C-alpha cells in the first residue's frame, strides 16, 4: 500500500486548515473597505483563534453532553469532508472513498449538531437561530442536490476527485452550463456560509441572526473550534467552485515545486473569490427572512435551467 493517498490527505488537510481563517479575514477586509473603514489586519483571523483558545469555557448547569461534544465533532466532521475534496493535489488513489452526496451529508451533519447546540442553550435566541437555520437549509436542499447532480452529469462521475480531474481535461468552455453552474455554486456558498443577503455574519441582533444565534452561548475554545469549522466549510465550498470552473494549477503528480505553485495559485484564486464575495455582500441589503425562500426559488430556477440546457442543447 503506497503512502501517497495518506500523504495527499495530510497535505490537503493542513493546507485547508491553514488558509481558511485568511479567506474569512479577506472578506471582512473587503467589506470594511467598502464602508471606508480600514478593516482588520489580514492575520486577524489567526489572532482571534489564538486568543479564543487561551480562554476558559463556561457551561450552564443545564447544558448536556451536546454542548460539550458538538464543537469537537463539528471540526472532526469537516476534517473528514476535507479529505474528500482535493484542493491542490489530486492523487491517483483518494485518501477517503466518498462521493459528492457523502460530502453533502457530512455538511448536513455539522449543521444538525449546531442546531441542537442552539436548542441546548435554552434561550430564545438559540431556538430562533436553530429554527431559522434548519428551515432555510430545508428550502435550499433541492437546489443543492440538483446542482450537485448537474456537476456529476457534466463530469460523468459522482466522485469529487474524478470531477476535478475531468475539469482539468476540458477547456473551460464558454457553455451556458458553466456560467449557470458558477452562479448556482456562488449562491450556494452565500447560503451555506450565512452571508448577506441571507444572513449577516457580523451581528448578533435578532433581526439579522440565523447562524450566529446558535453560537451565542459558546465561549473559549469551543467558540474557536466553531469559528474554524465555519471557515473550513467556506473554503471547501469555494474549492468546489474554483476547481470545477478554473482548475488550472492543480497538480496530479507530486513534486515540491508543483505543490508550492499549486498552493500559491489556489491562494490567489481563493482570494479573488473572497474579494468577489465581499463585494457581493456589500452590494446587497440583508433580505427579510420570509423573502429569502424567493431567492432560493430563483436559485432552483437556475439549477433546473442548467439541467434543461444540458438536455436541450
Amino acid at each position: 500500500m503506497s503512502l501517497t493517498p495518506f500523504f495527499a490527505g495530510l497535505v490537503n488537510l493542513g493546507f485547508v486548515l491553514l488558509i481558511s481563517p485568511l479567506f474569512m479575514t479577506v472578506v471582512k477586509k473587503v467589506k470594511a473597505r467598502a464602508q471606508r473603514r480600514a478593516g482588520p489586519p489580514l492575520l486577524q483571523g489567526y489572532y482571534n483563534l489564538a486568543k479564543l483558545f487561551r480562554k476558559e469555557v463556561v457551561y450552564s448547569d443545564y447544558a448536556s453532553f451536546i454542548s460539550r461534544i458538538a464543537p469537537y465533532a463539528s471540526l472532526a466532521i469537516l476534517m473528514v469532508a476535507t479529505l474528500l475534496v482535493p484542493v491542490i493535489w489530486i492523487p491517483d488513489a483518494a485518501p477517503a472513498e466518498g462521493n459528492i452526496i457523502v460530502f453533502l451529508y457530512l455538511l448536513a451533519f455539522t449543521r444538525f449538531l449546531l442546531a441542537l447546540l442552539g436548542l441546548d442553550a435554552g434561550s430564545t435566541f438559540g431556538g430562533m437561530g436553530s429554527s431559522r437555520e434548519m428551515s432555510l437549509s430545508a428550502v435550499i436542499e433541492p437546489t443543492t442536490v440538483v446542482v450537485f447532480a448537474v456537476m456529476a452529469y457534466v463530469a460523468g462521475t459522482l466522485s469529487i476527485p474524478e470531477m476535478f480531474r475531468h475539469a482539468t481535461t476540458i477547456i473551460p468552455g464558454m457553455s451556458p452550463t458553466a456560467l449557470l453552474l458558477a452562479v448556482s455554486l456562488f449562491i450556494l456558498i452565500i447560503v451555506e456560509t450565512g452571508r448577506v443577503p441571507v444572513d449577516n455574519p457580523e451581528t448578533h441582533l435578532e433581526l439579522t441572526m440565523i447562524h450566529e444565534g446558535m453560537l451565542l452561548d459558546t465561549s473559549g475554545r469551543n467558540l474557536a473550534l466553531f469559528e474554524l469549522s465555519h471557515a473550513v466549510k467556506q473554503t471547501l465550498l469555494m474549492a468546489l467552485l474554483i476547481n470545477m470552473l478554473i482548475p488550472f494549477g492543480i497538480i496530479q503528480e507530486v513534486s515540491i515545486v508543483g505543490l508550492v505553485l499549486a498552493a500559491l495559485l489556489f491562494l490567489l484564486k481563493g482570494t479573488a473569490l473572497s474579494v468577489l464575495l465581499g463585494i457581493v455582500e456589500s452590494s446587497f441589503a440583508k433580505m427579510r427572512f420570509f423573502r429569502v425562500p424567493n431567492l432560493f426559488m430563483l436559485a432552483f430556477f437556475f439549477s433546473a435551467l442548467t439541467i434543461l440546457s444540458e438536455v436541450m442543447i
Partner: protein
Amino acid sequence: MTEIGVIPSLLRICLILVLISAACLLTTRNLSSLVRTYALQSLILVAIAILLGVIEQKNILLLIAGITLASKVIGIPWFITVIQKRIRIQQDLKFSYLQPGGALVVSILLILLVYLCFSRVLHDLVTQNSLFFLGSIIGVSLMLMGLIAIFSRQLAITKVIGYLSMENGVLLFGLFVTELPFITEFVIMVDLIILVLLTTILTVGMDSSIDAYMNRLKEFHLWSEEEVQA
C-alpha cells in the same frame, strides 16, 4: 458536448441570459428594477441579433439590431421612467393566481412543455440546426412568461412590461425561425409605441394631459406645491 465554435456558444449563453431576465421580470417587486431588467433583456436581444447577423451574413439583422437598440433599449424604458416619476409608484406587491415561487416553477414546466411539443413538430430543425431550435423554444417560452407576468401582477405598468417582453419573445422566435422582413418589425414597433401611449392615457385620464392631471391633484390638495413644480 461536442466542440462548438465561439459564436454559437456565445449565442447559447445569450439565450440562457434571456430566460434568466424573464425569470427576474416575474419575481421582482421594485418598479425601477423591472424597467432596468426589461432594458437588459432588449440589450441581450440586440446582441443576439448582431451575432446572428454575423453568422448568417445578413445585413438586415444588423439593421433590426439597431432599431431594437434605439427603441427598446433606450426609448421605451426612458419613456416609462418618465411616466413612473409622475405617478410615483415604487413597488408592485400584489400577486394574483401565482406567487413568484410558483410562477418560476410553472415557467420551468412551460419551457419543458414547449421543448417536448416542438421536438415533435419540428423534427427537421432539431437535427439540422440545434441552435435555431433552441432559439425558437426560448422565444416561445419568453412569450409565455410574458403572459404570466401580465395576469399575475397587479399594476398596469407591470402588465405593460409583460406585454413588451412578449413582443421580445415574438421577435426572438421570428429571428430564428422565419425570414423576418423589415416591415413586420416596423409594424411591431409601432404597435409597441401605441401601447405605451395607451398606458399614459390610462394613467392620466382620457381627456387630459399630464399637466392638467397634476392641476387636478393640486386642487384636491393631494400634492403639495413644490412637487407640482418639479
